[in-house]
């Protein structure tokens, strides 16, 4: 029986936002990997929106902190990110997000 998926939503604004050039990016594969992230550029007056779909319960606060830190450390802005999680640890989430951003360049 499949475990029920939950949806978490977050929005952050970086302390010192930077501009990113890319339009659309799909990174990582869920199922064979540990998570998938899709990044889309979107005019949101500097904010970043996250939609997380995850089977894990009890770690909402950890998600919030990982994502908030990612936004502040990278300065990502005006973007919408969709994460499809398959039991990734916080390390893997940070690593995949940073790798995705490096792809955009």
């Amino acid at each position, binding site marked *: 029986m499949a475990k029920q998926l939950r949806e978490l939503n977050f929005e952050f604004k970086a302390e010192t936002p930077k501009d990113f050039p890319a339009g659309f990016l799909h990174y990582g594969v869920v199922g064979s990997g540990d998570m998938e992230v899709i990044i889309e550029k979107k005019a949101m007056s500097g904010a970043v929106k996250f939609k997380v779909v995850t089977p*894990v319960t009890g*770690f909402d606060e*950890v998600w919030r*902190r*990982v994502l908030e830190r990612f936004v502040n450390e990278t300065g990502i802005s005006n973007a919408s990110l969709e994460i499809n999680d398959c039991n990734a*640890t*916080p*390390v*893997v989430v*940070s*690593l995949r997000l*940073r*790798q995705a951003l*490096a*792809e955009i360049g």
Partner: protein
Amino acid sequence: MKETKKWDTRKTDYQERMNGAAQYIRNGKVVAPGDTIKVLEAVIRPFDRVNIEGNNQKQADFLANCLVKCDTQRIHDLHMVQSAVPLPVHLDMFDVGIAKKLDFAFGGPMAARVATAIKEGKLELGAIHTYLELFARYFVDLTPRVSLICAYEGDANGNLYTGFNTEDTPVIAEATKFRQGIVIAQVNKLVDKVTRVDIPGGWVDMVIESPKPFFLEPLFTRDPGGITDTQVLMAMMAIKGIYAEYGIKRLNHGLGFNTAAIELLLPTYGEELGLKGKICTEWALNPHPTLIPAIESGWVKSIHCFGGELGMQRYCEARGDVFFLGPEGTMRSNRCFSQMAGHYSVDMFIGGTLQIDKYGNSSTATANRVAGFGGAPNMGCDAKGRRHSTEAWLKCGAEFVSQDEYLGTMPRGKRLVVQMVETFGEKMAPAFVNELDACKLAKNAKLPLPPVMIYSDDLTHILTEEGIAFLNKCRGLEERMAAIRGVAGLTEVGLAAKPAETRLLREKGIIKTVDDLGIDVSRANRSLLAAKNIRELVDWSGGLYDPPARFRNW
């Protein structure tokens, strides 16, 4: 008149015991396997101190299975002194009452049963030791009266060939025999002439050909297929931030995927950084299959092994410039000597753990498992008797600022002791905790001390995906705790970190993040591994590595 005192009671006792077994010993020192239980009942007495050879690799399993079947009217309440208790039979011994007390070093898969047996009052725990510490006590206050050992070959005179898996046998046989104890060996094969005399016949009282070869566990084999991208990232941090920084030439790796990733990154990332010949040249290490690509690429000058790893024998024999071989060509491992080498002659120990507390003490024990530590504490400490110096040891000592509180202006070196952990382990279990589960275990199992693997005062560096904490550079406990918090991620310990404080530690070079180290995270993926699966390790070895069946997944 002066009373005549006897000085040979041990010898008389030995002869009495051997007389009881004489009827079963034929053709020199040979005993038929079917007579094993009778022989054990003849030579072992209640409350005897008995050793069953067994460590984290080879096991005298036939003799253990016979001992547990002995008549409990004749044999009971034995005091077992042995390296490890990894087989169910080792604990069955306590359930049926054959054994009562245990002094050991490593619990392995039976760690939970050890804790239960203690709680139920079936097992009285002497102490949890390191290997070297237990061997040392064999020569002081824990000398075995009877030892049950194992070998590949034996002859009618008692000569034994232990070869590739010599491991603990010499130290057990020596301690037992030279105190007039009895040494019984199970051998895979009775032969006319042994391949090499690893244990001289004079030290062995009986030889039994076991129905099956002794059990051997490939504990140090890690399939590169199981290495994650995070482990690749941490291995890059280790190589650039620690190995290259200190010029680590002589070292030991603990077992696990983190260190396997480092081994597999030497011929790729290490080569790229121009480190060949500058790091990782001499080792005290089991023959890790994941080191094959580095050996083949010419990185490694010398490896002395604690034990033999299943499937690596032919490869080691074919690399005589690297491994320690006998004149007839087979490698000889020796746990006692290799532990000694690891204690005195390496400049760095790097390994993993289950938990690190906010002070930096670490343990693999959990609330209900008496795991033991094997060799980690002897390698994971600065050998206090060390007097020779190397560049790495001097550099780490020079950075160890708190040293002047004891030595004044006198310079001294320090071994690097590195714990490498992801902040969250399997099933999101946090690696950093305010209090170790070992403290709960000490209460549950009534231990005099919480079992700590590496104490904070020996730990010099912590490496997590967040960064490296250079604890040796910290002045005082407060600064050390701040450095630990700074790399502890989102665990309860890490959440207590103050961003301003962590920033200051980065400026001081006490914490270095991936960015501080100048590592490109986009490169942290499995394609950087020199071998991505067991099949590729076999290819690197030119077909000499013969992996056990369970690792043949192609």
